[in-house]
């Protein structure tokens, strides 16, 4: 699927734009961007994006497929929805960012070590298994997502916070043994599986 040899001639052709329109959540909106830059100016983590949303949209139109999909930019989205409510063209920018991140993941070309990428995957795995999120397990996996040594350091650094949460009964150490789940785990997992199948069939067409 990956087409890395985009020639200069094809650079400003519609190919990648069409791919995004077909496969990325809310991707059909990308062409409607008018390059005003309000989204970029409204983003709380704006300065940390390699390519702010407006630029990503232009890159998509310019056919910069790999640069877009391998970018860490959309993983900087905090889902604050500032860009959405301010966009004069009413582009669902937050959703497009999520959609691009997901599409890159689906293709296996997302930036593997991006911390939010890792956290987001852990979150999904956690919820997809049990139907509900187990904050303690999520937290522990998060601390160790960069390896055991880093994890111990992070965990020690966060220990104060953890203790505060435990003391106020907002974190339960016993959850490590099991914790919250939906009762109909089987039905829940079957539903997710079906949804994933249906989506795969649509995207891969």
């Amino acid at each position: 699927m990956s087409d890395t040899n985009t020639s200069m001639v094809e650079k400003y052709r519609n190919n990648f734009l069409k791919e995004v329109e077909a496969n990325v959540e809310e991707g059909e909106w990308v062409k409607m961007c008018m390059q005003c830059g309000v989204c970029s100016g409204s983003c709380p983590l704006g300065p940390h994006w390699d390519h702010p949303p407006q630029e990503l949209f232009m890159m998509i139109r310019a056919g910069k497929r790999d640069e877009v999909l391998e970018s860490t930019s959309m993983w900087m989205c905090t889902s604050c929805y500032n860009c959405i409510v301010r966009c004069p063209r009413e582009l669902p920018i937050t959703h497009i960012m999520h959609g691009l991140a997901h599409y890159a993941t689906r293709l296996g070309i997302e930036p593997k070590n991006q911390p939010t990428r890792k956290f987001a995957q852990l979150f999904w795995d956690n919820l997809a298994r049990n139907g509900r999120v187990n904050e303690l397990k999520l937290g522990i996996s998060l601390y160790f997502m960069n390896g055991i040594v880093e994890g111990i350091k992070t965990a020690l650094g966060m220990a104060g916070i953890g203790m505060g949460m435990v003391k106020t009964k907002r974190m339960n150490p016993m959850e490590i043994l099991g914790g919250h789940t939906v009762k109909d785990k089987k039905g829940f997992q079957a539903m997710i599986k079906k949804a994933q199948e249906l989506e795969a069939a649509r995207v891969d067409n």
Partner: protein
Amino acid sequence: MATKEYSFYPGCSSQEGASSSNYLKSVNTMCEVLDIKLNTIPDWNCCSASIGYCGGGELPRLALSARNIALSEQHNAGQDIVATCAACWLATKETQERLEMDGDLMAETNQALSEAGLTLKNENKIRHMVEVLIEDLGYDELGKHVTKPLEGIKIAGYVGCQTNRPFGIEGESFENPKYLDKFIETMGAEPVEKYDKKVSCCGGALAFSEPEKSQALIKDIIEAAYDGGADMIVTPCPVCQMNVEVYQDKINAKYGTKFSIPVTYYSTLMSVAYGKSGKEAGLDGQIIPAKKLEDIAGK
């Protein structure tokens, strides 16, 4: 006024031993006073918040909220679904909207739901608790139950992102919503005028994955509250509450600040103003104790 009944979606963070269990506590106390009955959706699941998008594609994520709505239709027929968590409300409402707009997605969602023995009609309203308070009860009604006005407390009303955008509360602006300030006033406290970080982002889920960047945002939110002379911060969102409260020591260590400002929920304020005990108001869930509220609750 007759008892009002709603189908209730509490969400993961409100569970026992989870980060906003104290929110649920105060909500229950508040609802008892206001004669609101919350019928929890049986066997509800996670909404995937705004961070499930890496592993979860559009349809699987929609299916999550669709399952909750379908369960509500089955067990709490005809009732509006109410959420207290901003992300839960947002994800559920977004699902409802998108399935309403897109017949194909709706059909596929129902196909997935049938694997769990459910079908979705998608007919009930999805609402935030704040909407219920404003629209179904009104500020006058909320004020009637105040027995211990929160006099002498100045509070920064931190609305945050997802209770405010993209849906927000009817009649409020995205840039300067007023309802939280009105709650504060109704409870007898003084809101911080022109709190300029009122709708700024705390980093949300990225507080975990991008701690430094998020803490820089949180620092500004707290600083602005202090600048406005606030004794405490109040918010309608569990993620906002946690992010703004629990990282204060880390921010102090990094920036040399001396932050120690309590952050509570609107429902905490109301429970105390309605004359309930600190425990009933969930004040024991404060990592940074809300001393002024405790004093009033203890009177």
